[in-house]
């Protein structure tokens, strides 16, 4: 038997690593990937609580998060491609102005 709190602590570890990567990474694609890592950590919490309370709605939440994450990845990567076209860089320190 695995206590549910172990799953929650695992997702807390993953979420904190995602926050650290979000703050430390300088490449815009890596920053975006750390957002995906945080989304996955929260999904694990939803599934663990769905198992804990024997409710399907937690898994429904995860399903919708996955759909929104797919849409977000498509739009975000398109924005990254557009930024790279205009500025020729992927470094977030050089993309700190709203206009060129």
């Amino acid at each position, binding site marked *: 038997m*695995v206590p549910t709190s172990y799953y929650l602590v695992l997702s807390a*570890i993953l979420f904190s690593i995602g926050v650290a990567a979000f703050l430390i990474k300088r490449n815009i694609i890596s920053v975006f990937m750390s957002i995906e890592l945080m989304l996955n950590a929260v999904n694990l919490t939803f*599934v663990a609580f*769905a198992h804990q309370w024997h409710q399907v709605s937690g898994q429904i939440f995860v399903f919708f998060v996955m759909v929104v*994450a797919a*849409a977000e990845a498509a739009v975000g990567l398109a924005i990254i491609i557009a930024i790279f076209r205009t500025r020729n860089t992927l470094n977030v320190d050089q993309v700190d102005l709203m206009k060129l």
Partner: protein
Amino acid sequence: MHLVLFFIFGGLCVAGALNLLFQRHPINSSLSLIVVMSSLAVLYLLLGAEFLAAAQVIVYSGAIMVLFTFVIMLLNAGREERTHGSKAAYIVGFPGAAALFALLAYVFLTNGKYLGGARLGDYLVTTSDLSRVLFHDLLLPFEVTSILILVAILGAVALARKEH
């Protein structure tokens, strides 16, 4: 058995996430993120979410990460260089994330005794259970997400198109 599987795949998750954090080349980060997502699929199976485990492999480690890897290769992203801003990020980032983890772990472990435990196979949500809720009670949100996907596709095409 459950505990052993949890520690193997949870450890794989944490190792992949740390590799994502410390690799400086984005392609290595994206490949280690695939490891994280695939081992999360096994953890979903342990928690009795069989549809979500399949969807995790297909949608996340399949579609989304292939898109990421494709964009990394398309833009020819190299190693990220250390810049002025990265020093401040190191000073703030690691203690901030450690403090966040300490807070979350404290809350979860002190309240963990009110929660039960998960045994292998004591609660299984089959695909038909999930689809009954999804297509019966939540039909409207489901259709709205399909419109969201459509808008996202149009937006991605409009954003990534070359300007004339």
